[in-house]
């Protein structure tokens, strides 16, 4: 930075503003970028000559980690990754995305270069099996002690274990004893989780279990399992429970690698789970592509339960890549974020963002559940999309007493039809029919 001559500083200091100081309202509006035209020019002119007002404006600036930013970050984490809110800040800024994109590119390139279809790296298999052996004692009671830090983190981020966890765990333990005395494992990862990242982490647990299963040479009887998904209440679309149960036979020792690298790509923000996943993915990254096929094959098996336990056949690398790509594009929900009052959407796991909704007044909050997206803004502005933001409908919540006219500051989506809104004056508006009728509290 070139230094100004001292005479310039002296003459700047010597010139004093004439006239009255702008009042606090005008200074606030200036700092909030509300003023325009001559009004703004007048304020800047005054500030350029008035050290006192410059100091007031500087002191009046909110801290860098202002409430608005943290709110946006919180909303991002709530909408995109409901269960992974550990240490979430506004990571969806370009400097971070740049590194995330670079890391993703490195992982993809390394995977493509390192894949050897039909040929396994024996040393790597041994290493993974050895690791699995070490983890085996702790995974025997995996329902109470997850076997690996990854599972631990995933469980922590998913919140406290529910009742279904316990019942599932008990059944799993019982089943494990019955299954020919072998060390059969069930893990908390079998409980469904709405988060894509968590699903990846759970998939990693499943795969780890499978590795252990193979290594411990225990006989596994998949036919005795089908009742378990019903207990866990897995979603019909093939949730983690179905995944975990449908693929009980190990196909490749590199499966966990793919899952963990997927977790890295799915989560540009550095949550603990993703960090752990990244750490685990460092060594055996060469076998990512076969695992992709495994994942695609696993999905196919979910749809056809009669295929329990069948190993994957030989396949080509390109097939695996396309299967993975197709599967991801189908499975990954759009990610949403709010920046500068505009709702942005990413359909590529945060690598790029497009403005999905921009209205006259800035949007303040949003909520997303699947393809259902709600966005709220100032003065009761509420928008709803049922197709992931392709088309939007203006919704005007109203009751007999009146309509919603205050700023909408919070949106909670309990289901596709049950929505709750919070306004700036602490009103609560709820609907149980996707916005057709509303109740105000």
């Amino acid at each position, binding site marked *: 930075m070139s230094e100004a*001559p001292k*005479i310039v*500083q002296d*003459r700047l200091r010597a010139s004093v503003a004439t006239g009255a100081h702008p009042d606090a309202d005008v200074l*606030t509006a200036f700092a909030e970028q509300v003023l325009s035209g001559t009004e703004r020019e007048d304020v800047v002119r005054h500030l350029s000559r008035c050290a*006192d007002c410059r100091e007031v404006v500087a*002191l*009046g600036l*909110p801290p860098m980690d202002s409430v608005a930013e943290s709110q946006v970050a919180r909303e991002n984490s709530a909408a995109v990754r409901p269960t992974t809110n550990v240490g979430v800040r506004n990571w969806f800024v370009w400097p971070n995305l740049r590194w995330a994109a670079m890391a993703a590119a490195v992982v993809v390139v390394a995977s493509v270069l390192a894949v050897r279809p039909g040929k396994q790296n024996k040393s790597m298999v041994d290493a993974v099996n050895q690791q699995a052996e070490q983890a085996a004692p702790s995974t025997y009671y995996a329902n109470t002690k997850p076997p690996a830090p990854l599972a631990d983190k995933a469980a922590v981020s998913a919140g406290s274990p529910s009742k279904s966890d316990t019942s599932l765990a008990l059944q799993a333990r019982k089943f494990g004893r019955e299954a020919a005395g072998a060390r059969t494992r069930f893990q908390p990862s079998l409980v469904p989780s709405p988060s894509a990242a968590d699903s990846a982490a759970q998939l990693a647990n499943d795969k780890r279990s499978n590795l252990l299963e193979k290594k411990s040479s225990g006989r596994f009887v998949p036919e005795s399992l089908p009742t378990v998904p019903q207990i866990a209440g897995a979603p019909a679309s093939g949730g983690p429970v179905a995944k975990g149960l449908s693929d009980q036979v190990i196909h490749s020792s590199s499966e966990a690698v793919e899952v963990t690298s997927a977790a890295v790509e799915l989560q540009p923000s550095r949550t603990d789970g993703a960090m752990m996943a990244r750490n685990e993915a460092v060594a055996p990254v060469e076998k990512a592509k076969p695992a992709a096929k495994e994942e695609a094959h696993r999905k196919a098996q979910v749809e056809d339960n009669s295929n329990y336990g069948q190993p994957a056949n030989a396949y080509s690398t390109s097939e695996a890549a396309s299967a993975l790509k197709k599967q991801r594009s189908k499975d990954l929900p759009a990610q949403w974020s709010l920046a500068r009052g505009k709702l942005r959407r990413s359909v590529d796991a945060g690598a790029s963002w497009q403005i999905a909704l921009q209205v006259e007044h800035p949007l303040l909050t949003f909520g997303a559940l699947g393809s259902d997206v709600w966005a709220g803004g100032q003065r009761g502005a509420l928008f709803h999309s049922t197709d992931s933001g392709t088309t939007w409908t203006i919704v005007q919540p109203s009751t007999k007493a009146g309509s919603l006219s*205050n700023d909408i500051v919070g949106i909670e989506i309990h289901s596709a039809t049950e929505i709750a809104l919070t306004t700036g004056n602490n009103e609560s508006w709820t609907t149980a029919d996707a916005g057709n009728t509303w109740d105000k509290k």
Partner: protein
Amino acid sequence: MPAPAQAVLSDEKAFALHERCGAAAYGLDREQFASIVRDIQTKYLPLASPDEAADFCGALRLEELVLARGCAAGNERAWQDFISRYRGKLHAMALHITRDAAHAAELADSLFADLYGVSTRDGMRRSKLVFYTARGSLEGWLRTVMAQEFINRYRKQKRVVSLDEQEKEGAQFVAPNPQPVMAADARLEAATDEALAELSSEDRYVLAAYHLDGRTLAEIARVLGLHESSISRRLDRVTTTLRKRILACLRERGMSHAQAKEVLETDVRDIQLDLRTRLAQDSAAKTFPGGKVSAPGAGTDGTHV
């Protein structure tokens, strides 16, 4: 020439705004609300067409305005809402401004008392919230008011210093300023003033904030709503342009290019600063390095000016 007509917000539009912002919840009826909004409009936009007046009033932070005015009028619900929303923030703001917990508590409590209205006028409690006009956010206004209060207090404290404290700090015995302000070349001052006058207000603000106030590029960028790198580039550009303009103005005043450059580069304050540095170095060095002794009366080279 007849003065332009002053248009105020129509009753119909004022009542619609009253309905929209929920002013009734804070005890403001339609007439009171319309009066408040019109006062604000005539203060900031005295000469406006009806449409401009409506646009201006529609862009105000009306929800926060009615909250503030409800508080000023002593509405209980308004105070409940205000306290639930801003009480905690006031302390956080004060801490951000003062960087000291004790002073922050004092400043926040003082402002809160002002907002509540401790002072009375004509037997009526006078709340500071009545001055909020909703051009910006209420939270931002509270920050600004608190910053003003902090600066005023800081000044008062600087002015009122007891003699004991002065004695303790040795202020009584402070030597007179060892560097009397040396007058710069009058032509240089005039040339600099002329060059500064040609700058835009924003450029001048950037220069003053950076060089006089010591603000960071990020802070300046946030105030102006620009990116930090833009401010950096602008500072470089303005400084370079300014230097060229001062040289040009000096040449217009009869100096040659070399003379103008010399006057600008070798400012008397710079010479003095160099001299002080040089003297400090001399005193730290060996008295007679290399066994050489200067001639009597000549002194060392650094002491000659």
